[in-house]
């Protein structure tokens, strides 16, 4: 059984209340941080832990915190990114619903380390229930002296507020999120300046994912060195994986980084294999933005080594034969699923969610959506695949924010690994309307 640092107490009845959470040892990290460690001490432990951002990019959290500018007399902010909208990802909702005090405790110790006195949790607007749950948890923490003025008699003041979004995936991008928090449209900002220098209200700001902030609690309780012992290489600690698609047991799992992908998919401790006795065709391992891989390449690297659930192992082979851990949104496709249809669906998503500031993203996503739609509906042309690759290439790297890349990669990777299926659609416009292509043609892929 994997060490459970985040979800250990998730099944304890009443763990969503302050009383039970406290009885299970909750808020001891706040006491330890404030009474014995000081802000610098907390920062050092987080650096030692090797914790990397759980929102998608995997940037080392300790390093991000140490970049925070600290000009005299200017407030600093911690903003928690609970916008969770990357297709395939549903771990933050789970954590906030069942163990909200873990996030609040993490908010307090992280804010303390950064010297923030006002912090916000930006929750996507549809999570109205989670907003209520968090507001309740904040009120309880405050009533018990862990929030508000002079926390635990230390002289440290902190208020935490919940701020709702209103339905826009782009607001998960950290600078769009800050715009949205300022009451504006969610248009990403041009960087630099980075939020660490000029973020919310032009003040130095750290934006971290829900899971990242929650992970700081056990780092403080047990020490950064203990945390770093878990996992593999530079992928330290545990990670929440949202497992969805055609699996026997979809759900949120806390894994030790380094777990073999094969074990995660097939063992009964985790997903319990592919649903309805079918075979695995493909996996999107880290949320819709990361490259899709056919079954053979998700289970083993091109060199034949077992693929592990870690930042490095999933990326092995680069974009030719690898992918990314991303947000940990693990989507499994069975043999009956149509890669063309899913690629069209994902591209429609990115087109719909593009904020429209950059023409390569705004126009390119719409163009790809149209071409994919025509292939899916039996009107594709043999030149379409090269066209798609070309459009994707022209979006990638040419935009203000990474949504452009996120839209390009699924298309480019689907054509790289499943070109035979796209060609079959083009060459069999009638037949492809009534049946799916089936399993991928691995022989073609191995040679390409």
């Amino acid at each position, binding site marked *: 059984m994997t060490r459970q640092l985040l979800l250990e107490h998730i099944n304890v009845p009443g763990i969503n209340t302050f009383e039970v959470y406290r009885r299970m040892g909750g808020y001891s990290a706040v006491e330890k941080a404030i009474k014995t460690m000081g802000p610098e001490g907390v920062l050092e432990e987080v650096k030692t832990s090797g914790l990397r951002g759980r929102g998608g990019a995997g940037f080392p959290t300790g390093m991000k915190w140490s970049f925070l500018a600290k000009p005299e007399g200017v*407030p600093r902010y911690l903003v928690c990114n609970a916008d*969770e*909208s*990357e*297709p*395939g*990802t*549903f771990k*933050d*909702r789970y954590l906030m619903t069942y163990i909200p005090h873990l996030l609040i405790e993490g908010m307090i110790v992280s804010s303390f380390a950064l010297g923030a006195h*006002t912090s916000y949790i930006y929750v*996507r*607007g*549809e*999570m*109205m*229930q989670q907003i209520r749950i968090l507001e309740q948890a904040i009120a309880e923490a405050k009533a018990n002296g862990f929030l508000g003025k002079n926390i635990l008699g230390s002289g440290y003041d902190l208020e935490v*507020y919940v*701020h*709702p*979004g*209103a*339905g*826009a*995936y782009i607001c998960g991008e950290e600078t769009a999120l800050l715009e*949205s*928090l*300022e*009451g*504006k*449209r*969610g248009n990403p900002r041009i960087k630099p300046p980075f939020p660490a220098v000029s973020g919310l*209200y032009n003040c130095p700001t750290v934006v971290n994912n829900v899971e990242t902030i929650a992970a700081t609690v056990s780092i403080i309780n047990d020490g950064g060195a203990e945390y770093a012992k878990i996992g593999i290489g530079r992928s330290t600690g545990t990670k929440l994986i*949202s*497992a*969805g*698609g*055609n699996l026997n047991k*979809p*759900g*949120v799992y806390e894994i030790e980084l380094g777990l073999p992908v094969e074990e995660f998919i097939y063992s009964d401790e985790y997903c319990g294999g592919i649903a309805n006795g079918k075979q695995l065709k493909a996996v*999107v391992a880290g949320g*819709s933005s990361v490259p899709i891989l056919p079954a053979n390449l998700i289970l083993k690297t091109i060199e034949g080594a077992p693929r592990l659930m870690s930042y490095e192992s999933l990326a092995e082979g680069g974009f030719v034969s690898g992918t990314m851990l991303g947000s940990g*949104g693990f*989507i499994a*496709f*069975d043999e009956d*699923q149509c890669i063309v*249809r*899913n690629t069209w*669906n*994902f591209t429609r*998503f990115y087109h*719909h*969610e593009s904020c429209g500031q950059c023409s390569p993203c705004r126009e390119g996503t719409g163009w790809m959506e149209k071409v994919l739609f025509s292939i899916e509906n039996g009107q594709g042309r043999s030149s379409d695949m090269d066209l798609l690759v070309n459009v994707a290439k022209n979006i990638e790297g040419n935009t203000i924010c990474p949504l452009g890349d996120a839209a390009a990669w699924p298309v480019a990777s689907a054509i790289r690994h499943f070109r035979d299926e796209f060609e079959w659609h083009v060459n069999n416009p009638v037949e492809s309307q009534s049946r799916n292509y089936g399993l991928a043609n691995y022989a073609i892929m191995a040679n390409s």
Partner: protein
Amino acid sequence: MLNINNTENIENVEFTPELIGKFNEIVSRYPEGKQKSALLPILHEVQAIAGWLSVPSMNKVAEFLNIEYIEVYEVATFYTMYFLKPQGKYVLEVCRTGPCCLVGAEKIMKHIESTLGVKEGEVTSDGLFSWRGVECMAACGNGPVLQIGPEYTFYENLTEESVNQLIGKLKNNK
């Protein structure tokens, strides 16, 4: 699309002292002078009362926050949760994104369309229902899923039967 001259654009929310009190509490979460930050949460409060955002309501929000009308319109037109025209009393929002489609979301949307007898975005003649597809709701492990505002209650692992039951129950609620 926002049509300022739309005849449906009537004043449909009364800014009672209670509501203004709620707005003031929201504004107090943000630093002095940054009251515009309260715009998104305040628009949610307004929409929860009327079911959508009319232009006169948005203008009143602008006046309350001491910002330009256009600053409210540009936000209301950007975010998909805000409705700019009247909806059914119950808006069924079904996730239409990839992971849910792997487990049958498209079939559920077709079923809702034929059961309610209206196309996406249209309102049933009794005014009770409208429906639309929305993007991933971060509930993919229990797809297909739908949500109903203003509380955004979730209904997960949908089947045609569970959708029938839900619609029946809502009809009886009136």
